[in-house]
């Protein structure tokens, strides 16, 4: 274990028993009496450690087990197996001291009360968390400034736009100055400007308070802007844990080569050099296995009238998509060393 590790989980697993039902009315009636059940492994022996002040991106497709893991870490779910410690507490014991030091934000769910002004939900959280008056005022002031809430606080939640509501949700979840943040899709459904605002805020909050952040998102821009380190899970298993920049190297062993030809394409079959990704007015993008990059580039330059040529790492979206389209695991079991270091 590292020094200053805030989140430490070891072989954490969660198995759900789900009800199974065939389609149709008769099957539905039968299931009223007797239910068929099936076990689903939502999280399968995951281990990782997060240090104080880190912002870690937690990636995976829908149903990979991200939310289940976050729920176990925030004390809502008991694991089936394995152990976890956050700030030295076992989350699912839900000790008040622990709950006072963490927060959970779910982009898809609201804790703000619908009919009353936002500031009154804040007041409610102040009462629940027993925040002293002076600290509370300071927190509201600071969050108002960082998230630009001044014009929103007096309005009832139902009159706010999705983005405005999300900003207020985040503020409500941070009034008690938690030192661990679990953010489940905090930017979902927001426009680009609002996403950027929230991203900037998370960075600011992290820098000001030194809080540890574990965040899931479907938007790679979020992850690229916020997280040096990512943890990728798929089908409940840990696929990758390490630097975001290493992700491409490790799980997408190919490069993108963009070529512009002197005299247009002229119907030359470029597919022989690599997988054709895009083609626009004499500009061609190829995907080439990493080991072949040098030789293919050499052949391209020798055999064609190349006006311009660039070699790039593939965009992170493509890498992720590449991983998740191959199931169950393109890597086999994750390298335990890789999973534990960083």
């Amino acid at each position, binding site marked *: 274990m590292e020094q200053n590790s805030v989140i430490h989980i070891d072989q954490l697993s*969660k198995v*759900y*028993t789900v009800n199974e039902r065939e389609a149709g009315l008769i099957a539905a009636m039968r299931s009223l009496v007797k239910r068929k059940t099936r076990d689903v492994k939502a999280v399968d022996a995951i281990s990782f450690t997060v240090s104080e002040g880190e912002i870690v991106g937690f990636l995976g497709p829908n149903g990979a087990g991200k939310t289940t893991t976050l*729920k176990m870490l*925030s*004390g*809502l*779910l*008991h694991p*089936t197996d394995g152990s976890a410690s956050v700030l030295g507490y076992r989350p*699912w014991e*839900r000790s*008040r*001291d622990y*709950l*006072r030091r*963490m*927060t*959970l934000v*779910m982009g898809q*769910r*609201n*804790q703000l*009360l619908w*009919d*009353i*002004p936002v500031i*009154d939900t804040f*007041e*409610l959280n102040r*009462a*629940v*968390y*027993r925040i002293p008056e002076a600290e509370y005022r300071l927190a509201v002031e600071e969050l108002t400034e960082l998230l630009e809430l001044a014009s929103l606080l007096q309005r*009832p939640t139902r009159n706010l736009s999705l983005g405005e509501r999300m900003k207020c949700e985040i503020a409500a979840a941070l009034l008690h100055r938690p030192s661990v943040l679990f953010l489940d899709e905090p930017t979902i459904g927001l426009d680009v400007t609002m996403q950027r605002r929230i991203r900037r805020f998370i960075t600011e909050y992290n820098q000001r308070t030194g809080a540890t952040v574990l965040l899931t998102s479907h938007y790679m821009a979020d992850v690229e802007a916020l997280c040096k380190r990512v943890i990728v899970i798929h089908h409940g298993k840990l696929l990758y844990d390490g630097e975001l920049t290493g992700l491409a190297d490790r799980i997408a062993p190919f490069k993108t080569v963009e070529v512009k030809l002197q005299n247009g394409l002229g119907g030359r079959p470029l597919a022989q050099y690599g997988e054709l990704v895009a083609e626009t007015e004499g500009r061609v993008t190829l995907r080439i296995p990493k080991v072949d990059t040098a030789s293919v580039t050499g052949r391209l330059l020798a055999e064609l009238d190349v006006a311009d040529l660039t070699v790039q790492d593939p965009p992170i979206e493509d890498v992720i998509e590449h991983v998740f389209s191959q199931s169950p695991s393109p890597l086999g079991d994750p390298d335990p060393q890789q999973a534990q270091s960083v």
Partner: protein
Amino acid sequence: MFYLRLFATYLRIGILGELEYRANFWISLVQSALDLSVALGGLAVVFSHTDTLGGWRQEELLALVGVYFLIGGLIRTIIRPSMTKFMEDVRQGTLDFTLTKPADSQILVSIQTVEIWRLVDVLIALPVLSIALLRLGARLGLVDTAVFAVTLLCGGLIIYSFWLMLSTCAFWFVKVENIQVIFMSMWQAGRWPVSIYPAWLRAVLTFLVPVAFATTVPASAVSGRITGATLVGTVALAAAMLLVSRWFWRVGIRFYSGASA
């Protein structure tokens, strides 16, 4: 103390929330007035034919109506809306926010929604109860008043615990709103002393759905017909139900978090 302050906050929020929908106030007022007229009209009809009903005299039944409105008002103001919100939270997954708060989840859930206009029932109950008590006044001593207060409190706690247990079932069955409707219709029967009902219904109202303890028992305390055994039984039942419902709540939470699954 902490939970009292918390309750005060919820009360404030309740007032704020309801002020957004002022029409609700007038509807509640009309509804409560209608309910009261029906109750009093019923009494008037009965006593135009007879002097006692199941051994109860007019002012004793008036006290019963008062108790019925008082407890019913508290149910409608706090317990029913809070429990409805709780079931909604289970279905929508927003219960997670309650469970990650550093406070007792059962108490949070039980006081989280206050429908302030429903206090109209309580406001109506007070004068009705006062009139009944004044008319019974000559025979009402200090001890009787204390016993009345105790039975009223116990009745309230019994109903609360019962309702909490019904709602806790939402952890397993998710949709159990219908139970509330059944309960409210059983509650209507509490407007009359349970002694007027046939034996089987009396048993149901006493033991299955403990309406009798919240209405008939306190009302019999003011009319001096309560026995020591009933009093002790009521207090014991209130304590037992409070404990059992708390235990059941914990089991529900454990099930919800998958600890016992």
